[in-house]
Each structure stands twice: as structure tokens, then as C-alpha cells.
């Protein structure tokens, strides 16, 4: 058996509580899978052999003490994207963001979302690779080198949370956390045949997530089934006084109602989802999904998101503006990489050289873009215009959910969710887009709107594209109104039960 986690998180928990297996056994299997597969896949940037086993032993002791309340994520092995802070007291953890500037950075605290997982009984087994500071769509811009797609190692696994997606798809961990600023969870999940949920903005605390674009960033889970996705989402959501943008709402329970289908389900498929740039396999997967949902009794209607075409431009202005400010702190003064200076060098040299050496080319590109769009004289033309586009993009979604589409010639149904691809094509080959940032940015065409509108969305495995010897996963996403994580997981569950795509695992030697 190659898979360390043949069961769901819920099954693992039951097995542990029934004493059929120990948390140490579960953790060993996870660590063994990492040791075996990581050299070729490069998903993990750091593995916590000792700390994870120690933690597992504590949990076993807790299980032995039958008075202790059973924890919801008991024994769930978790990989963390390496832009999420983990206290360095845990296995001398680094929080590197795959950047030279933070290569040796030890965080003195653990992110709130991670703490919630730990408190719920999870075991952190590894930190995972990403595009530096979550800037990218392929997990190629990393000081640790690219992460490879477990379904085809000549291809990327998407990004920027590629390491987390790869780790879960390859069975190195039961589940993982990533962060989604413009699609960084949903796109790699689609290319690695996983479920992944980007929660409503404000649902999950950003405290401890190293900021890329603060008004867009959100932490979310990767899992191999909807039930695990719902469990993890329930665990990480909830108010956090340490994050001022955290919604003042209690944690939802997405699990108890999960198997109840949505009555009279209405799904909207935007005209824009059928872009000429789509790979035929993506369009085929979309059509197949529409057919599946129709068989399930859903009404699938055509909708219009007239401002979606401005998404990429608005996203790359807002995200880079915020990034230029968020990443200014990596100045070589308090922590992080500091350039060697000659006696004649001054403060400017310290800043310029430390940043030039510490930050990679894609990060520098985005910092320059963001600095430009915020500079005096350009602010209105770029930043303010992008904010206007952002409001219109959000209004398009609101209209779809309310059935009040302005462009429609007849009154429309109110949609429970919008169904569309996560990316225009399947995973591309390593290095294929590296020299053309614009084509890389266009990979995000279907995902950025969700972040701009602050909405929740879930990726569902929806088929494969056979390319020679490779079987490349295709993902679709369901986008819901704010706080509709419950409905989204229920719709995803309906699809999961009606199809078999998600049960297909990569063939790993």
C-alpha cells in the first residue's frame, strides 16, 4: 500500500478512538510517504519528523485517557504552506515564504488558523513549497525549486499553494492549508484532483499568514474528499480578535448537514466561462458537470458577469499595490536577509542590496508594479479605477445570486452558486510560461474575481485530459454568496457522490 491515508479524517479519528491504530502509526505513515516521494516531487520544504511523532504520542496518551473529550480532527496529518507562521518551538520550524529573505526566519508565534487545527487534534507534519510570497501560479518561483505534479512530473502542480496540493494528492498528509489571494488554492487543487475551499473573506483569521495582498488573502484547506474539506473549514473558520478584518461570527459546522442535497438547486454558468482560450478538455468537463447536475435535478442557467473581463487588470493593480506595501518590511534591518556592505556603503545601499538579493524576480516585478500604481499622479488612474472595477465585479456576482442580472432580457433565477472552470487549461509543463509573465497572469482569469468580490468558492475534481501517457486532472469551481460555505460543500458533496473523478489517485512509484 502506497497511500498513508486510505481513509478520511473522520475514519482516521474513529479508528484512533476504537484503538485500531495509533496516532504514532498514522504519523509514521505520513512521514514515510514524505521521505519516499518528496525527493522527486519537492512538495515539502521542511518535515517535522520528531515534533510530529512527539505530538502524535501526546494524542495517543490523550486517547488512552478516556475522560478527555474526543477532538474533531484527531490524528489528521496536516501540511502547511510555508507562508503560514508556525512557532519555531515546533521542530525548529522556519517560515520562509520560499524566499531568500526569510530563508532562516523563525516565527515566535503560530498562525491563529493553525492553532485552531492543533487544538482540534491535528498533527503538523510538514511545511510546503510555494511561489515566493505566494506570487505565482505554478510553484516555480521558489528558492527550493519547483514542485512537480504527482500526475505528471514534467508538469507544474499549479500555484502558489502547489506544495500543499501536491502533498495531499500524493498522500504525504491527510490534508493541507494553503492561501488564496487570486486563486492560489483553487487552481492547484484543480490540477491535482483535489477539493479545496477558499472561504469568504474574513471567515478565517489572517493572523500569522504572511501578507501578500491583505484585502484578498484568505487561508483555506485542501483535501481528498468533501467531508474532510468541510471538517477542516469548520475548524479554521471563526472570529479572531487579533485580525481586525475577521468576521464576528462563530465557527460554522459544515459537517452535520453535508449529505443533505440542496433542494431545487439553481446553478449559473457564466457566458465568460466559455472563453476561446479554454482547452477543449476544460469545456468538455464543464459540459459534463452541467449534465451531471441536471441529472441531479438542478436547474442550470446561463448568466452574465459583464465586468469579469476587468478582473485580471483590477487584481494585478490591487494585489501588487498592497504587496508593495506589505513587503516593504523586508528591509534587512530587523530580520531576514541583509546584504554584506562595504565601509563606503550607506543606508540606501543596505536597503537596495538587501532587497535586490533577498527577493526574487517575480516578487520584485510585483513590488515595482505596485509602487508605480500607488505613486502620486498615477493613483487615480490605476488604483482608484481598479477599486471601481472591483465593486462592479462584486455587483455582477451579487446580481447572479439575487437573480437581478441587469443585462438579462428576462427575469433570471437566483443562483445558489456559480459554476465555472478554475483555469482555462490543464497543468502546463515546467518552465513553459516562465519567460512570459503575462501568459502566467492570464492563468488566473477564472479565479481572481472571487477574491476581488470576497466570496467563498470550492474547487471540485471534474475530469481528466489524457495527454500521451499522462492523465491530467481538470477542476471546476463552485462560487457562492458570502458565508455560503455550507451550501457550497453540500453542492460539492452532491457532485462527489454522483461522479468518480476524485477517487482517482496519481500513480506513484
Amino acid at each position, binding site marked *: 500500500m502506497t497511500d498513508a491515508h486510505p481513509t478520511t479524517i473522520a475514519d482516521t479519528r474513529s479508528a484512533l478512538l476504537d484503538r485500531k491504530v495509533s496516532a504514532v502509526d498514522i504519523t509514521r505513515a505520513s512521514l514515510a510517504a514524505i521521505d519516499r516521494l518528496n525527493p522527486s516531487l519537492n512538495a515539502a520544504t521542511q518535515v517535522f519528523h520528531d515534533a510530529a511523532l512527539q505530538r502524535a504520542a501526546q494524542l495517543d496518551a490523550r486517547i488512552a485517557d478516556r475522560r478527555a473529550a474526543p477532538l474533531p480532527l484527531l490524528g489528521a496529518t496536516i501540511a502547511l504552506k510555508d507562508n*503560514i507562521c508556525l512557532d519555531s518551538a515546533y521542530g525548529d520550524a522556519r517560515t520562509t515564504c520560499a524566499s531568500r529573505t526569510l530563508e532562516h526566519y523563525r516565527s515566535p508565534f503560530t498562525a491563529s488558523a493553525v492553532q485552531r487545527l492543533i487544538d482540534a487534534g491535528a498533527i503538523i507534519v510538514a511545511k510546503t513549497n510555494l511561489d515566493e510570497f505566494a506570487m505565482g501560479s505554478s510553484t516555480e518561483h521558489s528558492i527550493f525549486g519547483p514542485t512537480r505534479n504527482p500526475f505528471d512530473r514534467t508538469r507544474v502542480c499549479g500555484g502558489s499553494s502547489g506544495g500543499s496540493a501536491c502533498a495531499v494528492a500524493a498522500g504525504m498528509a491527510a490534508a493541507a492549508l494553503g492561501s488564496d489571494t487570486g486563486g492560489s488554492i483553487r487552481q492547484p487543487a484543480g490540477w491535482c484532483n483535489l477539493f479545496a475551499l477558499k472561504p469568504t473573506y474574513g471567515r478565517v483569521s489572517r493572523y500569522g499568514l*504572511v501578507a501578500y495582498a491583505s484585502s484578498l488573502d484568505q487561508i483555506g484547506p485542501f483535501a481528498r474528499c468533501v467531508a474532510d474539506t468541510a471538517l477542516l473549514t469548520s475548524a479554521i473558520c471563526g472570529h479572531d480578535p487579533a485580525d*481586525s478584518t475577521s468576521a464576528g461570527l462563530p465557527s460554522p459546522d459544515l459537517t452535520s448537514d453535508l449529505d443533505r442535497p440542496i433542494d431545487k438547486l439553481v446553478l449559473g454558468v457564466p457566458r465568460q466561462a466559455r472563453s476561446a482560450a479554454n482547452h477543449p478538455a476544460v469545456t468538455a468537463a464543464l459540459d459534463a458537470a452541467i449534465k451531471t447536475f441536471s441529472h441531479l435535478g438542478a436547474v442550470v442557467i446561463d448568466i452574465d458577469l459583464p465586468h469579469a473581463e476587468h478582473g485580471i487588470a483590477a487584481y494585478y493593480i490591487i494585489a501588487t499595490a498592497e504587496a508593495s506595501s506589505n513587503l*516593504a518590511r523586508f528591509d534587512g534591518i530587523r530580520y531576514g536577509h541583509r546584504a554584506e556592505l562595504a565601509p563606503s556603503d550607506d543606508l540606501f545601499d543596505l536597503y537596495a542590496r538587501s532587497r535586490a538579493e533577498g527577493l526574487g524576480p517575480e516578487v520584485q516585478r510585483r513590488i515595482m508594479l505596485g509602487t508605480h500604481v500607488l505613486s502620486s499622479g498615477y493613483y487615480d488612474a490605476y488604483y482608484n479605477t481598479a477599486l471601481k472595477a472591483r465593486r462592479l465585479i462584486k455587483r455582477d456576482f451579487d446580481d447572479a445570486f439575487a437573480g437581478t442580472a441587469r443585462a438579462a432580457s428576462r427575469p433570471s433565477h437566483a443562483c445558489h452558486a456559480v459554476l465555472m472552470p478554475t483555469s482555462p487549461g490543464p497543468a502546463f509543463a515546467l518552465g513553459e510560461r516562465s519567460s512570459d509573465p503575462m501568459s502566467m497572469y492570464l492563468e488566473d482569469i477564472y479565479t481572481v474575481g472571487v477574491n476581488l468580490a470576497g466570496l467563498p468558492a470550492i474547487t471540485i475534481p471534474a475530469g481528466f485530459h489524457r495527454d500521451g501517457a499522462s492523465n491530467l486532472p481538470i477542476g471546476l469551481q463552485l462560487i457562492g454568496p458570502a458565508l455560503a460555505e455550507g451550501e457550497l460543500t453540500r453542492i460539492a458533496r452532491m457532485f462527489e457522490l454522483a461522479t468518480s473523478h476524485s477517487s482517482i489517485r496519481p500513480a506513484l512509484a
Partner: protein
Amino acid sequence: MHKVAQVELVVGLEVHVELATRSKMFSRAPNPAGRGVGVPAHDPAAPRKDRESCKDTSAGTAVPPNTLIDPTVLGLPGALPVMNRAAVEMSMMVGMALGCSIAPLSRWDRKSYFYPDLPKAYQISQYQLPLCFDGAVELGAGDGTLPARRIGIIRAHLEEDAGKLLHEAPGGGRIDHSIVDWNRAGTPLLEIVTQPDFRNADEVVEFAQMLRNICRFLGASEGVMQKGHMRFEPNINCVLTLDDGHTVRTPIVEVKNLNSFKSLRGAIEHERREQPGRWLEDGLTLGPGTKTTRGWDDAAGEGRTFPQRGKEDAHDYRYFPDPDLAPVVVDEAWRERIRAAIPELPAIRRQRYIGEYGLSGKEAAVLVENREVCLYYESTIEACIERGMDRSGAGRRAANMILQSGAKRANERAAGAEPVLVSDLGIRPEQIAGIIRLREDGAITSNTADELFGLLCSPHESEPADADPGEVAARRGLIVVRDDAAVSRWCEQAIAEQPQAAADVRAGKSQAIGRLVGAAMKASAGKGEAGAIRERLMVMLK
């Protein structure tokens, strides 16, 4: 070349007030400008009462460097700001006291620049929508030494302070690099910007002192200048009237980081003296790009300003709304709750003291300068009223006691070091009222009143802290003796000691009686009352 016939000064002021909240602007780390911060809790020698902490040495030296910090203060990756509501409420109070409107919606902006004392490489500030705006205060309303004058307030907004760059090792050792103390980083700062309504340095200093008193009364700041609780940045220029009647405006000079009233006055007066000559030399007048920034050097004689690099002009701060923080929404209920919590402000109290108690403007000004002293004074008045005195008389006599016996003791104790407040001398308002009552009853002399005041101050070596002034006076034999026989005995002794003076009085030279009164008082060992002795002597020498 024209001559300058007349110089009119024009000054606008920016003031940074470090707010005395317990924690910092956006984190839970303790605020060095907060009351009581920097006094180690376990130190038995540490002052116990909040107000005494202002006698402590500067927070910068009392608190070890880089101890009032946390991930947010240091701008660590992943750390986030959370707004301190108390800082917003304090700012609303100060804004209201300055007659400002409170914005129903204000916002946090990021001001970006690189400097080693700025942890995130941006400062969180309020740029577009300040919390308080559009206010005004009246100067010269109290003591009549200045004509009443209205000073407009453009805005008062909140921001966070930066850390401190140090160029020598703690303790003063030489180092070849700079080091940073982050204790001050993140301290809440209220920046108040006035209209250019000041016409002389007196007005500016009066405003600055008024602002300090307001902040103290509101508990918004301890207003200890030595600790940098207030920093001033005047914008100064002059309108020159030439001998041909034309007028010329000189370029604006902004003097940075003045942290005493003396340097504030000095910098303005220096600029008033220098700017006409500068214009004659370079011919530069007010216009875009002519503003310069100067520093203050008080080492040289009466002090001078000196040019600093015009870094302001080179910067593009790239302000944009901070996505980590929600806007501040102040609804009517919140605003009115804060308004209702504002105590009677010093300027109003000063007017009341002048009107109700007949104090001079100067006396009243001293009493309202410090919130603790002012409340102490008012407690003393209430204690006098409890002891059967009328309010007006109590106000007058309590002021005398505090401004004379009290100020004398406070000055002695301060001895040139940090100022000591009358309210911190260790004598309670009820005890002062007891002394005043004894004096009103004629039971003690004015000298005895002062002596009793001294005996009841800390460290309470001679008398316990809760001693009753009447008992102390009685036990120490300080009560005036009205016994006729005793008074007669002292007077006879005086006449015997001073026969010449007695003869002079008998001969009609009544001023000679002073020597006899003195001698009799001496004979009474302080128990006699001068008026009674004088009367008796007059009778005896008729």
C-alpha cells in the same frame, strides 16, 4: 534696495501628543507614554500611585530597550494591527475640547517610507479622513495679559510613533553603528494641526500650554515635556512691510521636533529675527517649493535654528487605505457618550476661580496647570466647606495655602530636579482645610499655619500621615494663647527689654511699637497673637 519697515509674524503649529493609553495604538504591548508604565511592579521603592509615575525618570531610560514590544510592534511577518479603542476615545475628547467636529467615518492610511526606526516601512496614520477636524480655541481669555484671540484647528488625527535610533551604546559607550530601541514604536500619537493664526511666540506658547493642560485634564497625556510626551513643529514665516508700503511674504520654515516650551518660543523668535535678513540676502518669497525644514540647537546662547535636508520634498509617501484595519465609524451614541465624559476643562475652571473666589489670573492659571493639583485644590475647598466655611472664602484661603505654603515645600523638595506637585507632598486636603479652619478661628497665627503645613507633609517623621492639625497644634503648644495674664506678662517683659521703644511709643512715635510686638511675640514663643499683643501694648503705653 528696500528697507523692511515692519515685520509681522505668521505661525501655524503642529503638535504631536503621545497618548497615555495602557497599550499601544495597534497592539497589546505596553505603552511607554502610558501612566505607570516603566515602573517595575516588583520594585518596593517604586511609586504606588499612578500620578507619581511622572516623577519617575524618562521611560526611555527607566525601561530597558526593546522590552515593550510584540510581533505587531516589530512588524514581524504575519502580525496584524488591531485598533486601540481607548486611543480613539481620548482623541475624540481632545478634539471636542478643541472645538472640533468628530468625523462619522475616518480611515487608516499607510504612509510609506524606508527608515530604520520604522518597523513596517510604513506608518499607519489618518491622511484623507482625520478623526477630528475644523475646531477653534480662544486664547487670552483668562488673565488679561493678551488680547483674546481665536486659533483655528484644521485637524487632529491619530497615528503610530516610530522607534528610536541610538548612536551610542546604552550607558553612553561609543559604537561605530546605529542601534534601534523599539519601545516607542507603535505608541499612539495625536497630531494636532492649527491654522496659521498665531502672530507672536507668546500666543503659540500659551496655546501649547493650554493644550497640555487640556490633555492632562482629560487624562489623555501626562504632558511631561522631558519625556517627549509633546513635540512641537511650528511653521513660521513673516509678512514684511517695506518702506515703500509694499508687502512681501517670506518662505515658510518648519522647525522639527521641539520638545519644550522654551525651545518652541526660542525657535519662533529666532526665525522672526532671521527671516527679514534672509529675504534681503536671497530674495526668496513664499511660493511652491520654497518651504524648508530646520532643526533647533539650544546649545548656542539663546539657541538657533539650522537647516536640515529637505527630505520631505523628495518623498512620495504613496498613501493608501490600510487593508488590515476597518474604518472608524463614530455614531451619535458613541460621540455623545464621550462628550458627556469630558470633565470641566481648565480654561473654564480658571474663569470660575477668578469670578467665584476672586483669585488673580495668574493664581488661577497656576492652579489649573496640572490636573492633580487642580483637583487637590478643589478637594481642599470642599473640605473647608464641610468645616463650615463659605465657598468663596474657602476658595480664596485654600488658594493661599496651596500657592504659598504648598509651593514653597514643593520647590524645596524639587531642588532644581524634576518638578514636585503640591498634591504629592503627602498632606491631605482635609488636613489643609483643618489648618485653614484653625486660622479662621484665630486659634493659630499665620506663621503657625505654615509650620503646621510643613509638619503634616511627608515623610511624616514628626507627625503621622493622618494627624489632625488641631491636635498637633495643641500638643505642640501652637494654639494662640488668649489668657490676659499671659499676654500682659509678655508685654511687660517686652517693655522691660526695650525701654527706648516704650519711651518712643509713649512720646507718640507709634511706629516704634513694632519692635515691642516682636519682643513680646518672642517672649510668647509663638503662642501669642500679634494683633492681641499690639492692642495690649497700646493700652499699656497710653
